[in-house]
């Protein structure tokens, strides 16, 4: 095979930050006091927090070493299914760091914040166009927060109709956070099995959809990477019984410029700016989860809303049907800047090309690896494809073993054991920013690992060997949790 990206290298040990502490060190220049001391009443003051005492280089070296133990998109291919780990453009970071944005106080008032308001307004309009909806809120702070927002909107809609409903339909190919989001609104989740082709069948929806059901939560393309071909018919069935259709837009990277979910009959959809719109995941956040709605649901959007009057912008809170506020201020503005910079850089054609190439990369991997790994649903996929370990089980090798061995080859593993509808799932989403050469290296690595599974299974079960630590005992860690030093 071609050269593996993963190799040996020197990394450094680094203790906990407090173990480096020495009495009397401080990594800031303490500001000079130009006003007199005003001691607080000793009854109100406490002991000083026992923070580490370090020099500036101590701090720099500590975090530089820690960072070197991490794998990021900038380190290598990160084919994590349903997470869209695409390249995060550096110019986006430059835009977000501008003093006029980064230094802006949220309560400076509309007149002093016109640039921020204009950016939010224009980003809302761009996302409305990309998704085919009437209105967008940028307030939700993450994808799951967007789901909650969407469910609150559905709840408020039914309340306004005068009769609340009790259930929500959630297919087995939906995202993992969906049931918890529905529960927060008091809805009981009703599980719906997808059909033999890996997509939903209208008859199955019709069978369980009733007037006690508030709606359905659909991920499209679903978590098998398949487009829900019957989406329009399903929407009609749900609407006919007075329900609403929630779209989980986490997989929007497959269909930008190809399909507008708002035109399919979906009523409300959330997006993940930290997936589709290239903002970095930051090791787990901050993200941003805008929600798009059709005209019927616009009155229920959270406040404040951004409105335009002639060429000035203002926040509006006077919306009597609004579900209310979801964030202390206006959401993750810093993330919005990056996503807007991305959209301005790409344009309509760039976004369409993005989806086309994301889908090309996934289909190329699917076809290249389907002789090596079992492919439970052998159909044209969208931006991700789902294999499993059925072929490796005879050698007592699991999806987890293959995932861990990939680390030694220098690749981040795919999403494993999700979606639940596939036993031992191995879910690959390459994204459009990976080149053919990098994808070929990945394919070669998976093939080499599959061969090792037959000839040298020990190499997989003891993997990984190259990272700083080997397999960690998560079960023991959870049994006796140690959550602080």
């Amino acid at each position: 095979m071609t050269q593996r990206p993963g190799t040996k290298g020197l990394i450094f040990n680094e203790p906990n930050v407090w173990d480096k502490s020495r009495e009397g060190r401080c990594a800031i220049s303490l500001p000079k006091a130009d006003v007199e001391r005003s001691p607080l009443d000793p009854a109100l003051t406490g002991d000083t927090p026992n923070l580490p005492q370090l020099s500036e280089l101590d701090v720099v070296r500590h975090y530089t070493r820690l960072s070197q133990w991490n794998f990021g998109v900038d380190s290598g291919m990160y084919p994590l299914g349903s997470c869209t780990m695409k390249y995060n453009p550096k110019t986006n970071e430059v835009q977000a760091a501008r003093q006029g944005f980064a230094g802006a106080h949220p309560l400076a008032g509309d007149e002093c914040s016109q640039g921020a308001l204009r950016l939010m307004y224009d980003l809302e309009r761009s996302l409305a166009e990309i998704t085919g909806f009437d209105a967008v809120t940028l307030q939700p702070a993450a994808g799951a927060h967007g789901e909650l927002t969407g469910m609150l909107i559905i709840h408020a809609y039914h309340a306004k109709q005068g009769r609340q409903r009790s259930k929500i339909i959630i297919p087995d190919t939906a995202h993992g956070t969906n049931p918890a989001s529905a529960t927060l609104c008091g809805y009981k989740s009703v599980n719906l099995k997808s059909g033999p082709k890996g997509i939903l069948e209208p008859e199955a929806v019709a069978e369980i959809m009733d007037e006690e059901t508030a709606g359905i939560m659909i991920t499209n393309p679903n978590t098998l990477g398949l487009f829900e071909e019957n989406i329009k018919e399903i929407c009609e069935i749900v609407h006919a019984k007075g329900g609403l259709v929630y779209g989980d837009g986490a997989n929007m990277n497959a269909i930008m410029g190809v399909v507008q979910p708002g035109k399919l009959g979906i009523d409300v959809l959330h997006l993940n700016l930290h997936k589709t719109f290239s903002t970095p995941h930051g090791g787990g956040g901050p993200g941003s989860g805008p929600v798009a709605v059709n005209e019927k649901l616009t009155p229920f959007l959270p406040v404040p809303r951004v409105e335009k009057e002639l060429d000035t912008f203002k926040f509006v809170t006077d919306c009597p049907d609004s579900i209310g506020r979801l964030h202390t201020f206006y959401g993750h503005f810093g993330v919005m800047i990056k996503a807007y910079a991305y959209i301005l850089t790409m344009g309509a054609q760039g976004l369409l090309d993005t989806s086309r190439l994301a889908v090309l990369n996934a289909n190329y991997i699917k076809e290249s690896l389907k002789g090596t790994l079992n492919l439970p649903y052998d159909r044209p996929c969208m931006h991700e494809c789902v294999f499993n370990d059925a072929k490796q089980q005879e050698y007592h090798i699991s999806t987890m073993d293959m995932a861990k061995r990939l680390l030694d080859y220098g690749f981040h593993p795919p999403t494993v054991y999700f979606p639940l509808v596939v036993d031992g799932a191995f879910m690959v989403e390459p994204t459009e920013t990976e080149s053919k050469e990098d994808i070929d290296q990945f394919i070669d690595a998976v093939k080499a690992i599959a061969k090792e599974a037959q000839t040298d299974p020990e190499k997989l079960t003891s993997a990984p060997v190259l990272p700083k630590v080997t397999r960690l005992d998560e079960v023991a860690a959870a049994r006796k949790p140690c959550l602080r030093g």
Partner: protein
Amino acid sequence: MRYLPHTQEDIQKMLAVAGAGSLDDLFKTIPDAVKVKDGLNLPEPMSEWELNDYMEKLASENIACKGYTCLIGAGSYDHYIPAIIPYLVSRSEFATAYTPYQPEVSQGTLQGIYEFQTMVTDLLGMDIATASHYDCGTALAECALIALRKNKKADKIAVSDLVHPSHREIIDTYLKPTGYEMVLIPHTKDGLTDMTALEAMDGIAGVAVQSPNFFGHIEDLAAVKKVADAKKILFITSFTEALAWGILKNPGSFGADLVAGEGQSLGIAKTFGGPGLGLLAGTSKLMRDLPGRLVGRAKDSNGDDGYVLTLSTREQHIRRERASSNICSNNGLNAMTAAMYLSTIGKIGIREIAQLNHDKAMYLKSALAGAGFEPVFDPPFFNEFVMKAPRDFNRKRIDLINRQCVFAGLDLAPYYPELTDHYLFCATEKVSKQQMDQLAKEVA
């Protein structure tokens, strides 16, 4: 397009393998009737230099572009951010990583967040801190839900009306579909939560009090604890200014069960209010009720130390509809930033910065008093306080913004209609004596 690496030759070769004649062919499972016909209606793509010009133009429409004197806080604070903080946190191994589900290649994030959890527990005097939340308001709403779930006999949560107004609105939003109710505890004429009113409340699952409160006053948390114990309800406390704990007695020392806080002060830029950093801490007893991620120590197969995400059986991706919360992404990179900031200022720096904030605020208050402002409330405060302004102040205030980029106080009337002409001021370590003297002269 510079982010898309495919050459025409690559595309042809890959299409052949994929068994498709063209890129459009890849979408044949999508019915033609639902496809976009004429392309999306978006602005023409910009080059990087066009983008720079356009974004700078937008940024310059915010007054913050000029570097201003910020004498407002109310949940977003103007503190100095040492140069090493943005420098270190922009290391792309941190910024471009996913949630550390594969611990072997995520030890940097994991150790960093473990250290963050440790420093936060120390700052707040609590047993456990989570790996972060979106902001204080959403963390506080989650705390209210925990109390309501724990105490099945009660369906109300008592919340001080001096909790940040936005946070109260968020609690309202979260509670609306659940059938639970938020009841407000009024405040006394001293600008403190009215304990007598709290004592008289029945059917409540927990009490939430912010300290320092929205007026900046330091609440008597010991008194809140006493009432909470007598009623056998959960004691929740929140804060918006994390640096206060560099000098004040922490919530844990008063026996708080749950603490929700805003960590933006810890090295994070204001950025028009987000992303900030939600802090959430609790007692060991509540470990399994806490929402969100937790990092714990673990051993690898060689017996070496490492870290993993742990207790994930509480979380939405495992427990699904029975999860304690639906939170998935949190504000991890900002948690890392806060850890870097706390390591940088250290034990010596945090006390000094906290004291300096208090000194400056005391000075500003007396300077404004000298300029004819009326100090309406008396309780001790950290770095925020309320003053009643002379009648013509609002005109001067707008003039100060336009002429000198000085933001002198936040008008409280939109939040508390009875407080016309009352302003909430904040002074941090960044404001100089000279700036404060100048302000006093301008508004006198």
